[in-house]
C-alpha cells in the first residue's frame, strides 16, 4: 500500500465545481457588473470569461495531478499543491475516525469520498474527494487493523476480534419514512411557516382602514390584497413543503448501528453520509423537545462528542434519534449508550423562582412596549397583548426548568423556545459555575451552569433560579471531599 496513488480523474470535475462555488461572487463582480458599462469592446467580456474558465479547469487538473496519497510507516501521507507543495503526514494513532460519504457526482461514478478526521480540528482533516469504494474499504480496514495492532504478534488475535465485532454489530435504530415526514414537518420549518403566515394575515388586517380612505379603489384594493395574501400564503406553503422534503431527503434511511467501541450513523438519499463516532469520545447527550413535538410526546436526541471539524458543520451537532417517542427513549438509549439514564424524575425549581422568570421577561418587554406605544400611537397599544404571552412563556420556562443527579449523571433541563435536557457524566463535566445576583441572593436562589466539550467548543447546560442549597448539593456531588474522582 506504499506506492503513491492519485484520486479518480473525476476529482478534476469536483475541483472545478469547488472553485466555481468559491468564485461565484467575484465572478459576478467582474463579469456581470462591468457588462453594463459602455466603451469596452464587446469581445473583451467573452475573452475574460474564457480565460477564467480555462484557468479554473487548468488549476483543477493540476491539483488532481499533484495530489497523491499513500500509506507508509504507520502514517497516512498526502502530498498536494500546485504552486505551494504541501505534505501532510498523519499518524494512525492520531486518526479519530474515518467517514465515507457519497455525493451525487460520486454516486453516478460509483465512487466515495473519504474523510479522515483527527483530533486537531479543521486543518488536520484529510479529504480524499473521489476514490473507488474498494480502495476506501481497503484503507479503512488497513488503518483500523494497524491501529489495533500495537504488537505485531497479536495481529491474528485482533483479526479474530475484528470479526467478532462485525458479527456483534446490529442495527439498533431505524427511522421509518412516516416518522421521517413527521420529523421534517414538525421541525423548525414549521415555526418559520407559522410566523410568516401570522405576519401576512396581520398585514391583511391592517389594510382595512387603508381601504376606507380610498373608497374609489375599494374593489381593486380588496381584490389586490386578497390575491397578494393568497399568493404569499401559497408561496409560504411551498417553501414549507420544500423545506420538509429536503429534510426528508437529507435524513432518508436514517440508521444507527452500534459496535463495541463505535456508533455508526448513516443517512441520506441523494448524498449518503456515514458518520463513525468512537463511544469514548461521547461527552453527553441532549434531548430537545420543541414547541410542537413536546405536546405530542416526541423528542429529538443529539450526541455531544469531542471531535468533528469546523469545516463540516454537520459533524458538530449529531442527531442520534431524529424523532422518537419519549416513552421509547429510555429503552433505545439503553441499547446504544447504557450509561445514560433519561427516565429520571427531574427536581423542579422552587415556586418563588416563578416571579423572577416573569420579571426577567418584563425587563425586555417594558422598553419594547414603551417604544411601540410611543411611536405607533393607535396600533402600538396592541403590543400590550405581548404581556400575557410573555407571562405564559415565562411560566413554561419555569415549569420546564429542573435538575437531577442520578449516580454519576447530572441532568439539567431548561427551555428557551424548545426544552433542552442535557445529560452529562460527572467525569465529562469540564467546569461548574453558579452565580447569584443581589435579588437572587435575597430569595436564596442561584443559577447553575455546567460545561462539557462538544465539537470544537462547548455545550452548556443551565438552570436559572434553582434553590441555592441544591447548587451546593450539585457542587459537592461534582467535587466529593475525599476522592479525587470516583472513576
Amino acid at each position, binding site marked *: 500500500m506504499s506506492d503513491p496513488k492519485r484520486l479518480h480523474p473525476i476529482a478534476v470535475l469536483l475541483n472545478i465545481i469547488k472553485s466555481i462555488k468559491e468564485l461565484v461572487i467575484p465572478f459576478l463582480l467582474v463579469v456581470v457588473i462591468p457588462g453594463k458599462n459602455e466603451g469596452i469592446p464587446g469581445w473583451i467580456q467573452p475573452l475574460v470569461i474564457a480565460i477564467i474558465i480555462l484557468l479554473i479547469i487548468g488549476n483543477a487538473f493540476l491539483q488532481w495531478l499533484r495530489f497523491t496519497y499513500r500509506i507508509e510507516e504507520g502514517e497516512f501521507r498526502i502530498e498536494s499543491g500546485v504552486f505551494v507543495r504541501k505534505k501532510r503526514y498523519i499518524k494512525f494513532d492520531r486518526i479519530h475516525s474515518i467517514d465515507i460519504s457519497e455525493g451525487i457526482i460520486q454516486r453516478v461514478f460509483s465512487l466515495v469520498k473519504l474523510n479522515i478526521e483527527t483530533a486537531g480540528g479543521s486543518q488536520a482533516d484529510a479529504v480524499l474527494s473521489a476514490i473507488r469504494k474498494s480502495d476506501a474499504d481497503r484503507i479503512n480496514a488497513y488503518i483500523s487493523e494497524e491501529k489495533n495492532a500495537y504488537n505485531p504478534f497479536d495481529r491474528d488475535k485482533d483479526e479474530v476480534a475484528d470479526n467478532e465485532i462485525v458479527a456483534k454489530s446490529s442495527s439498533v435504530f431505524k427511522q421509518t419514512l412516516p416518522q421521517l415526514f413527521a420529523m421534517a414537518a414538525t421541525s423548525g420549518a414549521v415555526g418559520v411557516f407559522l410566523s410568516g403566515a401570522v405576519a401576512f394575515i396581520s398585514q391583511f388586517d391592517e389594510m382595512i382602514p387603508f381601504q376606507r380612505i380610498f373608497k374609489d379603489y375599494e374593489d381593486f384594493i380588496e381584490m389586490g390584497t386578497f390575491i397578494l395574501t393568497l399568493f404569499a400564503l401559497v408561496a409560504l406553503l411551498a417553501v414549507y413543503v420544500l423545506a420538509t422534503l429536503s429534510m426528508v431527503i437529507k435524513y432518508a434511511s436514517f440508521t444507527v448501528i452500534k459496535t463495541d467501541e463505535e456508533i455508526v450513523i448513516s443517512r441520506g438519499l441523494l448524498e449518503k453520509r456515514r458518520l463513525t463516532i468512537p463511544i469514548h469520545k461521547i461527552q453527553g447527550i441532549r434531548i430537545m423537545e420543541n414547541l410542537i413535538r413536546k405536546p405530542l410526546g416526541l423528542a429529538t436526541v443529539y450526541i455531544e462528542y469531542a471531535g468533528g471539524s469546523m469545516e463540516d458543520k454537520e459533524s458538530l451537532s449529531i442527531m442520534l434519534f431524529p424523532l422518537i417517542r419519549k416513552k421509547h427513549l429510555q429503552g433505545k438509549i439503553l441499547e446504544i449508550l447504557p450509561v445514560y439514564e433519561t427516565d429520571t424524575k427531574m427536581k423542579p425549581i422552587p415556586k418563588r423562582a416563578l416571579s423572577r422568570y416573569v420579571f426577567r421577561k418584563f425587563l425586555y418587554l417594558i422598553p419594547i412596549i414603551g417604544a411601540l406605544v410611543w411611536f405607533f400611537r393607535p396600533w402600538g397599544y396592541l403590543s400590550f397583548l405581548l404581556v400575557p404571552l410573555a407571562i405564559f412563556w415565562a411560566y413554561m420556562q419555569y415549569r420546564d426548568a429542573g435538575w437531577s443527579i442520578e449516580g454519576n449523571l447530572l441532568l439539567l433541563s431548561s427551555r428557551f423556545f424548545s426544552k433542552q435536557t442535557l445529560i452529562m457524566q460527572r467525569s465529562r463535566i469540564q*467546569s461548574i459555575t453558579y452565580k447569584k445576583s443581589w435579588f437572587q441572593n435575597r430569595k436564596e436562589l442561584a443559577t447553575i451552569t455546567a*460545561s462539557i466539550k462538544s465539537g470544537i467548543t462547548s455545550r452548556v447546560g443551565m438552570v436559572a433560579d434553582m434553590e*441555592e442549597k441544591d447548587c*451546593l448539593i450539585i457542587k459537592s456531588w461534582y*467535587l466529593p471531599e475525599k476522592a479525587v474522582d470516583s472513576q
Partner: protein
Amino acid sequence: MDDDDSISITCPEEEKHMEPENRISNKALTVWKISGLISCSITWIISIAVLVLTIIFDWTYWVIGALVLISTIQSYLAIFLIPSVKWKRWRYEVRNTEIDIQSGIFIIKRTLIPMIRVQHVETKQGPLLRKYDLASVEISTAATLHVIPALDLAEADELRHYISRMASVEEEDV
C-alpha cells in the same frame, strides 16, 4: 450508585459562607482604574468634539448636556465604583483537587474546575500589567477558559507551575 446520594448531602450550611481564601493583587485596583480612565477618555474626547461643533454650528444644547452627564456617570462607574467592587469580589483558591474562583460585580459568580480537567495553564502580561509587575493566569479545560487577572508576577508563575504539576498527575482522554 446509591452511596452517591449519601455523599451529596454531606455539605451543609457552613459551606455557603466559605469564600475562596486568596485575593488578587492590590495593584489590580490601580490597573483597573487606569484602564477605566482610558476607556472614559474616549467618551470625553467625543463629548468635547461635540461641544466644539455645537458652539461652531449653533446646535441645540441638550445633546451636549446629555453627553456630559453620560461621560460623568461612566467615569464614576468605570474609574471608582466598578474596580473597587470587582476587586472586593475577586477571590480564588487552588486546592489539591480543584480550582475555585469567585468573581462578579452585581452578580456573584463561583466557578469550580477539577484539577484533572485542566488541559493547560498560561500566564499573560499586557503592557499595563507589565508596568505594575503583574500577570494574569489563564486556565484552559477542554471546553472552557478561566482567567485569574492581575496576580503578582512571582505568584502567577508559582501558580502556573503548581497547577500544571497537579493537572499532569492524572492524564485522561477528553
